[in-house]
């Protein structure tokens, strides 16, 4: 039951914050897949998002700003049997923590990384973040920010990610589908979750997250199925080789031209990540590969068991006796 995954702690996000819906979705997904709470650990950095572990009845470690992936890597190495989740924000994960994220991804450490992207630093009261759009006005950019933002999707692909997915905080169906697949993945499963910060960046994603228009503004991907969207699946996505880009076509006319989603295609994944409207959701890229901990243990002569005692080693290459 999802509520078995709720802790006794009072949840302290702002009323109306998108984090509540994500918490619910994760609790539900863990219940759905029958996760063992004692074998599950949530590791987070610092930020509003990073308060997450206090609210979920598993092991939890609220660490320091930006370092959750590194701490989680150590945890996973020490106990590869655990399900280790990392909860981070766009500041925590992509500003101060970018380096650890990069190396986690390239190593393919078996972590489930949920990045709550609200395009703002929530906890420190609303400064622009590395995902904020140019021109974002905030306490640290009263005349609008000038920094070009990073695309989380392009960044993780550039780091050699093996799993990249997207979801919307309030989209129960889409989120629980994605989270189940995250749970099943070996290696780093990275999810960008569009999260609404109602206090400092209200409705930045409204143009595609509004329920009413979602069918037309979101493209829900399923491996092996054509990329269709719209109220009646009447629109599709086609690759235009002239312009080397994706474009929307009328699916009723030209169904045969509509791309079929192949999760293993890194090139199309990058085109999908850049798609503006509709915005691609679900598992955009998945290319399984051996996880870092598996490679580590496979390679470790004793699989971290003590096969010899110190007394077998302590003499070194040569020793002598004084009597």
């Amino acid at each position, binding site marked *: 039951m999802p509520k078995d995954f709720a*802790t006794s*702690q009072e949840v302290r996000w702002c009323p109306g914050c998108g984090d509540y819906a994500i918490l619910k979705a994760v609790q539900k997904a863990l219940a759905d897949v029958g996760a063992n*709470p*004692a*074998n*599950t*650990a949530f*590791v987070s950095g*610092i930020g509003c998002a990073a308060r997450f*572990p*206090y609210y979920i*009845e*598993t*092991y*939890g*470690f*609220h*660490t*320091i700003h930006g*370092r959750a992936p*590194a*701490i*989680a*890597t*150590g*945890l*996973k*190495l*020490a*106990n590869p*049997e*655990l399900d280790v989740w990392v909860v981070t924000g766009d500041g925590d994960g992509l500003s101060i923590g970018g*380096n*650890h994220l*990069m*190396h986690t991804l390239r190593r393919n450490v078996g972590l489930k990384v949920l990045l709550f992207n609200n395009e703002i630093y929530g906890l420190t009261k609303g400064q622009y973040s590395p995902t904020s759009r140019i021109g974002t006005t905030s306490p640290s950019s009263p005349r609008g920010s000038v920094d070009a933002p990073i695309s989380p999707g392009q960044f993780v692909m550039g780091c050699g990610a093996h799993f990249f997915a997207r979801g919307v905080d309030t989209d129960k169906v889409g989120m629980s589908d994605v989270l189940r697949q995250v749970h099943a993945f070996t290696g780093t499963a990275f999810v960008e979750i569009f999260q609404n910060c109602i206090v400092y960046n209200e409705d930045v994603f409204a143009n595609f997250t509004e329920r009413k228009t979602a069918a037309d503004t979101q493209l829900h991907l399923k491996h092996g199925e054509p990329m269709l969207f719209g109220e009646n699946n009447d629109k599709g996505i086609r690759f235009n080789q002239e312009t080397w880009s994706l474009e929307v076509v009328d699916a009723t006319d030209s169904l045969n031209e509509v791309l079929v989603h192949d999760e293993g295609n890194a090139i199309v994944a990058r085109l999908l990540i850049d798609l503006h409207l509709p915005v691609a959701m679900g598992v955009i890229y998945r290319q399984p590969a051996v996880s870092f901990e598996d490679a*580590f243990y496979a390679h*470790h*002569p*004793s699989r*971290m*068991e*003590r*096969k*010899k*005692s*110190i*007394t077998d*080693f*302590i*003499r*070194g*290459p*040569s*020793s*002598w*006796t*004084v*009597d």
Partner: protein
Amino acid sequence: MNRNNDVDSIVIRLAGDSGDGIQLMGSQFAVSTALAGADFATFPDYPAEIRAPVGTTFGVSAYQINLGGGPITTAGDAPEVLVAFNPAALKVSLPLLDKGALILINNDSFTARNLVKAGYDTDPREDGTLNDFQIVTADISHLNLEAVKEFGLSKSEGGRCKNFYALGMLLWMFDRELESVEAWISRRLADQATMRDANIRALHAGHAFAETAEMSANLSQIQLAEADMEPGEYRSITGAEALALGLAAAGELAKTQVMFCSYPITPASPLLHRLTRLAEMGVGTFQAEDEIAAICAAIGASYGGMIGVTSSSGPGIALKTEAMGLAVSAELPLVIVNWQRGGPSTGLPTKTEQSDLYQAVYGRNADTPLPVLSASTSGECFEMAIEATRIAIRHMTPVILLADGYLSNAAEPWRIPDMAAFEPITKNIVPESDDSPQRRAFTRDEKSLGRPWVTPGMPDLLHRIGGLEKDVETGHISYDPANHQRMTDMRAAKIDAVAEFIDDQRIEHGPDSGDIVVVGWGSTYGPIYQATRRTGVSFVHLRHINPLPRNLGEILGRFDKILMPEMNNGQLSTVLRDKLCMETLPFSKVTGQPFLIREIVEKIESLRGDV
């Protein structure tokens, strides 16, 4: 030099190009010395450049050995024998020698080109430069090539045996056996039969050459006193080796695996390299992307139930200080090893210093105390690694263990300890109770104030930890003012409690009270030991720096003057003034070089003059 006589101990310096195999030659010489019953201490001194241009002074690699009847605790002040493989080596070593020293010169390398590279306008062998010394020259390069000719090696391959040729000569001089070196060559070059045989041949040829009439006219055998060492089994060990073994031993004593997470940096990397070879003893190594990731992964490993260890030198430790605060707050065990080097900033990365004491004792934001230990000798790195781990697990705290660049590389004979003599390392028990798991995970042992080590995967103990202030009893987040005071006090009391478990401070030697006591810590042990023995003053050496042993103040109070030699600007003096409110006499040397015995002797003597 006192040739043709039995001597008590002697200091030898081998110096040549980085490519001359000096370090190897030195360490083999040390071991064969030890096998014959001598005590020894070594000081490898190599250039900052990876492979500096041949023949330059900044490319000189040297290895100094002090050997003889013990106890030998330093690599010696002034070399009495210098083996100079080329002019540059002669040039940089000469200032270290006292008059009368013996210099063995490889004639072949004194070409016009090499003289220029070394900055000599005229040939020092002929221009009077060496008048004050005893000179023995030999065409070592050439003789060696002759000796290995039959193996059909290329000139450069053949030349690479030169160090063993010279080693053969040295071994004759000190009347040492060739067997151990031979055995070592056979093991090391097991799959390169020709090179193996050529090296062994060179070794014997050098030995034979030294024995021949021409050579022995100038060079005579030296009989070294046998060291009066405690009976037992010995090996040669560097600090990096001993620390690696100590961590593995600590894991065994705690029945827990060790996860070592670090990022390479001079002079800390040798520990990483050593540990990669101890995998079958339950040691894992993780090379992280940077120092912050390294300490964080170690914290994660500790959280997961293995002993997390990280290591670096000053600049890297600086980067770890934020995460140390997390480990203090979350009350997780962690061992942090600092191999100190010359600073500030990049400073003198290959030179030794002990200037990170401030950083270790005071270098964190907020009131964030943690235990600080220090290793005095290469061999002692073994015990201190165990001690650090024991404290970390008993008190559930990060522990800093200070070592330095000198210890990392310096070899000494080490009596192999009996592992059965070490007490097992036990973990605090999770209380059986109906309390919430969170509270149980934070129920501290009354004496050590360490909490139980509850790790993910344990059923029924789910709880959450983190860096926000916690309720002193329940472990839940607490913003309560009074609780913050109690937690601050508890954190201080926990570290103070370490003093209840450690040995009392002892006086190494000298009277129990008197006019002067010399107080040291870390790798200055060696020179202070000798200097205090020679002058007969009392010597106190610290292994526990925070907290200090309970009786330290009482001991020091019995002396009029407290002399504190340190390879920094007086940092331990600050700590003693702070913790014991005692006036001290700092004696600083910040040159990147260890103290010479005579420097400390002179200081003591001048102080005595004052008394």
